């Protein structure tokens, strides 16, 4: 053996170690991205026999692969629906998995061309819908919508859904890519008990709102709190407030990313009203540092009266809610008599977006499971389990609803046609959450930006997004 001295063993090891040290972290970030082979549609299972119990003609023996987002609503409702599916198609093997990490679990499967048959694409790791649609990765669900419904075969599934649900699942054309299963009511959440203790009614105008907050302040209670770490909860009451002041068109312009959409006087009045909450000290101290859970707990403990949130809050805060809390949702208080829309205008929209990938092996099976989920039986099961409404219109008959849910149902009835649905939330996630939410509205409510500064900042963000070619654009029809 020759001598190796001239190689400088020690240097070699030292250098190798240094390179390794650099390589490890960089690699772990970079290698997360690697695309797989081509997608093919050839591995789809054959069509089955169409019948009364099988209107979508699914292959009765084909396995079904379902991935559920295991978040605020859990996964039991899906398991129950799968059991129903198993009763109708006993020879089909259903594999169920649930995760909070939708994107990291499923992205490789999409890239490899082997996605599951039905996905609840929800939560913080939601896959970007616009991209999925734009890249033609989804199955058109119109076949499902035109199939007869489980409860009344004379009625199409389409006609059993709540208004607006089908439209939310469409993008540019007539195809319906997404079916929102849950139905969420957004607004100002409060405890009837705590308001009664103050001898107060839910305020219908902003002056009344300020008066209630002042009353509470004298008793050492804050008027408002919110998820300070996720300030994009504030729009849940702020956006319908803007619509109430200036009409639906203001929100539509905002959704369409039109120039100067945010410079509308209605936006300014709404921002100024909310800023007043901060200036008068009606916001619970420390709110900008609270997570959604922490803010909900403080609200449950009666430290603050009002909380902008969605109807999932009842289920999410179940453990910390006192028995006599009497949770309720209020439509945003108006500004004054000149408001364009009446009191009761509220934000409601579909939640829990279900999708059937285009390259799924058994897409008909995925749609069939959705059809079963939209039956009255499964829908009531969902309502009972997680106290949230579903997209099935009605379906609450004969159920004793928990207080928050009952109040959501009431609010929807009261709102009638005045339900708004700002689409910026699902069309432009980055803009809505981190830019408008955290960097502008969050700063406004923490008192670090004035309404004018916040609006100018948001307008700049919106203009940037409008110019950004890498973001797919949508418009109201």
């Amino acid at each position, binding site marked *: 053996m020759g001598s190796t001295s001239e190689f400088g063993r020690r240097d070699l090891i030292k250098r190798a170690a240094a390179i390794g*040290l650099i390589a490890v972290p*960089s690699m772990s970030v970079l290698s997360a991205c690697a695309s797989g082979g081509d997608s093919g549609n050839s591995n789809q299972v054959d069509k089955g026999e169409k019948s009364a119990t099988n209107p979508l003609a699914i292959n009765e023996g084909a396995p079904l692969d379902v991935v559920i987002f295991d978040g605020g609503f859990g996964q039991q409702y899906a398991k129950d629906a799968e059991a129903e599916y198993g009763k109708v198609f006993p020879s089909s093997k259903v594999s169920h998995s649930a995760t909070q990490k939708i994107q990291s679990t499923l992205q490789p499967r999409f890239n490899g061309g082997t996605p599951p048959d039905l996905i609840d694409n929800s939560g913080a790791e939601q896959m970007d819908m616009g991209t999925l649609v734009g890249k033609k990765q989804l199955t058109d669900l119109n076949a499902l919508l035109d199939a007869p419904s489980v409860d009344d075969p004379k009625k199409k599934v389409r006609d059993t859904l709540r208004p607006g649900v089908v439209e939310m699942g469409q993008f540019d054309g007539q195809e319906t890519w997404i079916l929102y299963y849950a139905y969420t009511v957004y607004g100002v959440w409060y405890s009837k008990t705590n308001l009664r203790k103050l001898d107060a009614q839910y305020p219908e105008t902003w002056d009344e709102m300020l008066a209630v907050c002042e009353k509470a302040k004298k008793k050492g209670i804050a008027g408002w709190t919110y998820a*300070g770490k996720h300030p994009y909860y504030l729009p849940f009451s702020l956006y319908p407030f803007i619509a109430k002041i200036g009409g639906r068109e203001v929100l539509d312009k905002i959704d369409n990313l039109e120039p100067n959409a945010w410079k509308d006087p209605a936006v300014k009045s709404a921002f100024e009203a909310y800023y007043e909450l901060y200036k008068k000290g009606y916001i619970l101290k420390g709110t900008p*540092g609270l997570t959604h859970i922490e803010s909900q707990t403080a609200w449950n403990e009666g430290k603050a009266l009002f909380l902008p949130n969605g109807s999932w809050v009842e289920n999410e805060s179940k453990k910390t809610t006192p028995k006599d809390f009497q949770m309720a949702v209020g439509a945003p208080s108006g500004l004054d008599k000149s408001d364009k829309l009446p009191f009761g205008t509220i934000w409601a929209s579909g939640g829990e977006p279900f999708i059937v990938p285009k390259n799924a092996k058994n897409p008909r099976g995925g749609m069939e499971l959705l059809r079963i989920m939209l039956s009255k039986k499964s829908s009531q099961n969902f309502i009972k389990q997680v106290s949230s409404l579903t997209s099935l219109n009605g379906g609450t008959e004969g159920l004793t609803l928990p207080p928050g849910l009952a109040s959501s149902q009431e609010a929807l009835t009261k709102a009638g046609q005045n339900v708004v649905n700002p689409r910026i939330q699902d069309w432009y996630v980055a803009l809505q959450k981190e830019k408008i939410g*955290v960097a502008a509205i969050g700063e406004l409510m923490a008192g670090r930006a004035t309404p004018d500064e916040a609006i100018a900042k948001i307008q700049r963000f919106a203009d940037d997004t409008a110019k950004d070619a890498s973001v797919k654009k949508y418009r109201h029809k």
Partner: protein
Amino acid sequence: MQHGKYRFIVGFLALPLAIYGVFVISPFIQAIYYSFTDWTGLSPDFKMVGFQNYQRLWDDEVFWKSVGHNVLLLVLPLVTLGLGLFFAFMLNVGGRRRKNAAIAGVRGSSVYKVVYFFPQVLSIAIVALLFQFAYNPNSGALNSFLKAIGLDSVQPDWLGDPQLALWCVMAVMVWCNVGFYVVLFSAGMSSIPKDFYEAALLDGANRVQTFFRITLPLLWDTVQTGWVYMGIMALDAFAVIQIMTVGPGGPDYSTEVLAYYLYTKAFRDGQAGYATTLGVALLIVTMIFAGIVMKLGRRERLEY
């Protein structure tokens, strides 16, 4: 037998190099390739777009902010290693002189050594969560403590305050890393021959002098490794940012770092192509850092 030497070495290195090539080098090259495409990460169909991603990067305000924060985070190694060295010195050399021993640690040093190592045992996710509770402005340990000592008027929002948020994150990272370096440096110090210290003490050197004249120079290699390692940790910082901060990455982008920004682009916005561009930028920043450290740290090696 000189001629067989290379073949011999190659024979041994082939397999590890191949594995390294497949699992480390090729993802690098792939990532660089993807950074020139408009790949979404959600479908295998994409096209080349040239330098478009890099142009966008250059104009991206948030990117420059994240780079700034990453550079600021490089203060971390300085503090962490400084504290680590100080504690290790106190544990091994800093104690009062006792009988039969030229040098000793402070009283109870063996217990401290274990205590310092505790945070290292906890997963970073747990540490971040615990500190998130501590930073809670309403009921967190920090503000409760401030209240208890009568500072009712000083109740910062901690992570909710753009001025403080990044420093809060840094404090957590220092807290959970110091222990490791205390142990590492302790091990290094115990291998320094005792006679050096004895000789120095006979010459009348005090503790500060022994530290700078004996301990530090003989420990230099270890310190340098620690420096590189800690620096890379600072350039990452992903876990703490994602678990603890407002937004995450906020408030108002005040805690945005490259690794987290990359993650949101790849896994939330469906812009994997742009995300790999950020990855390449991160790689360059890391390389520059490593280069600087290697250059600055080069010293004559002392053999003993």
